[in-house]
């Protein structure tokens, strides 16, 4: 954000907002007589940010110590990642900040778990319309194909971070707007990737479906994808 053409009013507001942001971020509030009142602002801001983060990262939050979590939130408030006026983007921008942390501060497994938790939220509110089509040959527009180095979908069940294991996960929203996720086998993944690659090319899509129709195992697989509403 750059400054607008300066006016006396803007200069006064710039001076004040710099002072207030320093007061909010500094631990010691010696320069102001009513420290109690400034502390209220600090608390309100932190609580508000947290209220948009914790529901998005429910599993990761249980694996992060209170001190570390507080440090991250405080760092976010001093970071340049507070770029969106929309509250739902706070979690995404928080993740962008964490992705820039060195491994010594944040394990890749935890970062990837947080990304997976965020994807579930992103799929839930994605603006795509999920409508059944006549031919059942259209990929669900909310579908996300995500590659991880860890089995992030199993962490909730295990209650701890797990060793590295290359993992592909699919997440999508069904026609009733429920978020679904699976770990596809190699054949399912290849079929979906192929269908995705020919989405823009009508002729290629037509040819692909001719092959699928003529191949019983692929026909069976495409029927499973329809039942799961990955194909609409």
């Amino acid at each position, binding site marked *: 954000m750059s400054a607008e053409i300066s006016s006396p009013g803007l200069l*006064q507001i710039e001076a004040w907002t710099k002072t207030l942001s320093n007061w909010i971020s500094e631990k010691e509030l010696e320069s102001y007589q009513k420290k109690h009142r400034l502390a209220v602002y600090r608390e309100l801001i932190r609580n508000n940010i947290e209220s948009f983060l914790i529901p998005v990262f429910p599993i990761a939050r249980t694996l992060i110590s209170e001190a570390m979590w507080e440090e991250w939130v405080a760092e976010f408030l001093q970071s340049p990642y507070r770029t969106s006026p929309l509250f739902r983007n706070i979690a995404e921008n928080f993740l962008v900040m964490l992705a820039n942390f060195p491994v010594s501060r944040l394990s890749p497994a935890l970062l990837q778990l947080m990304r997976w938790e965020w994807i579930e939220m992103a799929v839930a*509110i994605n*603006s795509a319309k999920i409508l059944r089509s006549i031919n059942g040959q259209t990929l669900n527009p909310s579908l996300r194909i995500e590659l991880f180095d860890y089995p992030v979908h199993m962490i909730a069940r295990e209650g701890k971070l797990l060793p590295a294991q290359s993992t592909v996960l699919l997440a999508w929203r069904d026609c009733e707007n429920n978020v679904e996720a699976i770990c596809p086998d190699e054949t399912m993944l290849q079929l979906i990737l192929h269908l995705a690659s020919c989405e823009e090319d009508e002729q290629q899509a037509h040819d692909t479906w001719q092959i699928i129709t003529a191949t019983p195992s692929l026909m069976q697989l495409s029927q499973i994808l329809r039942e799961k509403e990955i194909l609409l």
Partner: protein
Amino acid sequence: MLNFIGLSGVGLGLRTELLDDILEYPSNENIQFLEIAPENWMGMGGNREQVFERLIKKFPIVAHGLSLSLGGPAPLNKKFLADIRVFLEDYKVELYTEHLAYCADTSGYWYDLLPIPATLDTARYVADRIKTVQDILGKRIAIENASTYILPQGTTLPEWEFVAAISELADCALHIDINNVFVNSVNHNFDPQQYLRALDVKRVCYMHMAGHLEDIAPDTGDRLLIDTHGAPVCESVWSLYEFAVSRFGSVPTLLERDLNIPEFSELMPELKRIASIQAADKHITIDADKEKLFQPSILLETENRSRKISDDKKLGYR
């Protein structure tokens, strides 16, 4: 009861926790409209979009923004404003209100409402930004007085003079939060009725009612009221609301409850109390003045004027 821009009576701030109850509730009883923060609903798909579409079929909606940062030092976010305009037009929302505060500076968004110094210069600065917003939205907006816990350095005007000056300079409507007036009157030691007497009656088109929390500093004994929206409305705020209705008329009034949300039925007595204060209002002539603020012909003039100004600017650049 005043009725303009398609609104009258009593509204409730929409909370996810209350969604099911609101969707089941008859639309002609104690709730005449709902208020939403557009930031929480814009561009949303899935269940959220479906729920919103059900709600707007049932109730008129007021959009109460949180992220415009009218009093901020960073340039207005024009992309965000364009999205707001689309949202208001798509859902036919007549009234859009925003806070007289800032929530973003040159370092980014703070996601909370922070106070600005009240001076003649800052009043002009904020009013210019409101005029820009009104030009972009093609619509008169209302600005809401915010609760504050400190008086910003450099403040020279009492808050009521600041609010009144901005509304005149920007030619905008006023959304008066009665609880915020009361909270600030305690926090900064002024007479809340004097505040309300300073405002132009015809500009006040909408009011908020809410509860607050009292906090006493353990070391200094400093008494501070915090605008939590987490408790029932206190008797002092009810008295101030009666005074406000006697002055501004029974403008549409919203009950806010954002924390410690009780059972839906427990909100009914407060909604009914607002309605009964409105019903006792004897104003019959100021309706037209308020309606005039939102007349399409006046808005069209504003829009044409702004178009002309922007055309002139283009000419000047050539």
